[in-house]
């Protein structure tokens, strides 16, 4: 059924369509309308789930961990300070190999307080062992939740996933969204039925102490699982397309990159704007393209290497910053393409922190700057975009 809804409602409908059985969540701006909608679904009986109104995000994730270990499909949603409060238990969830699916409405970290979009919260969880999917539309949010459950719960994966919505730009902006029929979702996503679960009468330990001669094998298996999740995701998306008629371009969604000379890499809603900018510049004869980083984990290593060997310049836009280094997307992409025979000139753009607009004009200037840098050679700089007091004018 086609409806007009916000990204947050798309998340709630995604969890409902996926038949989450236990929801444990704590409110935070701008995630609140997800948990409110789910509370409505559960209260009205439209959704057959247990809703635990926990007293913190740490408890939300800890409760999901326990429920998932007992064999229930779980869902939660959070943002910024809630996500970072969860940090300890995020690591727990992935190391316990629990396919929990969560929406993070990506928002800046305080201080100073800001409720607006940036990716610092999500990027700071890079090493927790969660898959991370950045979305550019509300439809993609809903669809990725359904796909994520299928990927996460597959036997060779058994890892959790974070679906990332840009604060307000997706979370509170309405778009037409197709809510798929329940029977079709049911045929695509079977009930969660893990091999092992904690149940009365079976004296097993979940998370017992191990010795140094046992620990690394657990981590090695999780590493393999995350690696295998890459292909698994591509297969699930293919299947999703057959059933629902929609797809989003795999882990690295390339737009007009085939004959591009320079490309920009961006994640989330900025990528949607950048695609328009690419169209406008193409009309003026500029061979530019946009590569949308859809999955930060599993990292689309091979995709980047293939792209890198085709272009002369690659800009990377990070909506977060790793102090003492550069943008996290940038450093990872650079490392990934380092050993390519032919690799482009690269440059990092830090933009849009704390909800600052990344306008089409700014994106166009970034593309021009990549072109110039590619021509000039060199690059490998980190430039902060649209910051008061810096010499370059972006607006």
């Amino acid at each position: 059924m086609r409806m007009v809804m916000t990204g947050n409602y798309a998340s709630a409908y995604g969890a409902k369509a996926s038949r989450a059985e236990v929801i444990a969540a704590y409110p935070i701006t701008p995630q609140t309308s997800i948990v409110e909608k789910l509370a409505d679904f559960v209260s009205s009986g439209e959704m057959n789930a247990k809703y635990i109104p926990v007293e913190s995000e740490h408890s939300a994730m800890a409760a999901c961990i326990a429920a998932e270990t007992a064999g229930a499909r779980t869902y939660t949603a959070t943002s910024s300070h809630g996500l970072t409060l969860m940090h300890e238990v995020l690591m727990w969830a992935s190391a316990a190999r629990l396919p929990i699916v969560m929406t993070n409405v990506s928002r800046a970290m305080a201080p100073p307080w800001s409720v607006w979009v940036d990716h610092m919260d999500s990027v700071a969880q890079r090493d927790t062992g969660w898959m991370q999917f950045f979305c550019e539309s509300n439809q993609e949010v809903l669809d990725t939740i359904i796909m994520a459950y299928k990927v996460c719960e597959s036997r060779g994966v058994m890892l959790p996933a974070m679906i990332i919505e840009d604060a307000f730009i997706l979370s509170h902006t309405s778009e037409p969204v197709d809510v798929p029929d329940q029977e079709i979702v049911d045929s695509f996503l079977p009930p969660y039925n893990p091999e092992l679960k904690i149940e009365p009468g079976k004296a097993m330990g979940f998370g017992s102490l191990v010795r140094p001669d046992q620990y690394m094998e657990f981590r090695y298996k999780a590493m393999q699982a995350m690696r295998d999740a890459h292909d698994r995701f591509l297969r699930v998306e293919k299947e999703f397309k057959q059933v629902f008629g929609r797809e989003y371009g795999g882990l690295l969604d390339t737009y007009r990159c085939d004959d591009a000379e320079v490309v920009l890499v961006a994640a989330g809603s900025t990528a949607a704007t950048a695609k328009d900018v690419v169209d406008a510049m193409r009309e003026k004869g500029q061979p530019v393209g946009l590569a949308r980083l859809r999955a930060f984990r599993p990292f689309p290593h091979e995709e980047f290497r293939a792209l890198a060997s085709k272009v002369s310049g690659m800009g990377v836009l990070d909506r977060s910053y790793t102090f003492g280094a550069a943008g996290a997307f940038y450093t990872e992409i650079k490392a990934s393409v380092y050993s390519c025979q032919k690799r482009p000139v690269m440059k990092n753009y830090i933009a849009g922190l704390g909800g600052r607009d990344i306008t089409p004009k700014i994106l166009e200037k970034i593309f021009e700057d990549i072109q110039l840098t590619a021509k000039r050679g060199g690059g490998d700089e980190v430039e902060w975009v649209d910051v008061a007091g810096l010499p370059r004018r972006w607006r």
Partner: protein
Amino acid sequence: MTKTTIPEEEFTYPGSTGCPGCGANLVMRYLLKGLGDRTVLSIPACCWAVMPGYWPSNCLKVPILYTAFEATGAGISGLRAAYDAKGVKDVTVVGFAGDGGTVDIGLQALSGAAERQTDAIYVMYDNEAYMNTGIQRSGATPWGAWTTTTPGGATKNYKHEPKKDIMAIMQAHGIPYAATVSVAHPEDFVKKAQKAKSLKGLRFIHALSPCPPGWRMSPQLTVEVARLAVDTHLFPLYEIDDGRLRITRKGKGTPVKEYLKIQGRFSHLDESQVDSIQKTVDERWAKLLKRESEGA
């Protein structure tokens, strides 16, 4: 043949890695005798996270979900929700945590679980310090005790603050059942565990859990020190059932110094300090008797 006064069936295998004379071993043993084999445990970081043994061993005949230190209240909430969602019947969900994991870092999650009336039993085994990390003070360490973070020294920096009253905190949540238990009184212990099992909502059990290395005493004194705690009225045995308080063992009223003097952690206390502890114990005991007579 003599008949035992508590269930004969054991739910613990040999092989716990606890110290000799560990009171927490006995707490688990009597608890499971009361609750039986349809129990699912959620255990945070604490001595009991280590005592079941290295993976894949488990010295208990029931399953264990290990959780983060502060997460017991959330763990039991998640387990209960999953069993309810899945229609799993006949399961007793139990949080089993130390005093630090309960009165300090885990208090928020426990309070949340109690307020949400989570259908589970929460057991705090109270060895009155962070023992797993090597005897640091907790909010449950009693006044005057030595620990490695209240080490005395020239400034006589022993624990300056009284023990947090977790039973009062839990009662203030309006939970259906709260009880204190002792490893020196297994019949009373098992009966309370069985009663807790028969009820719904969040039930709380506070077990005093002597710890020979932490309390600086010989391992064979575990049961004796637990008995003295009850007899001196320092750790009275009572239950609060649906708001009604009932003392289940009156104790002999032995002077507290008998309890204190067999533990190295109190060996620095002078006579006047012992007297002041006695005074506090007497006052609290009188209050408890009054509450019992008033039915609250």
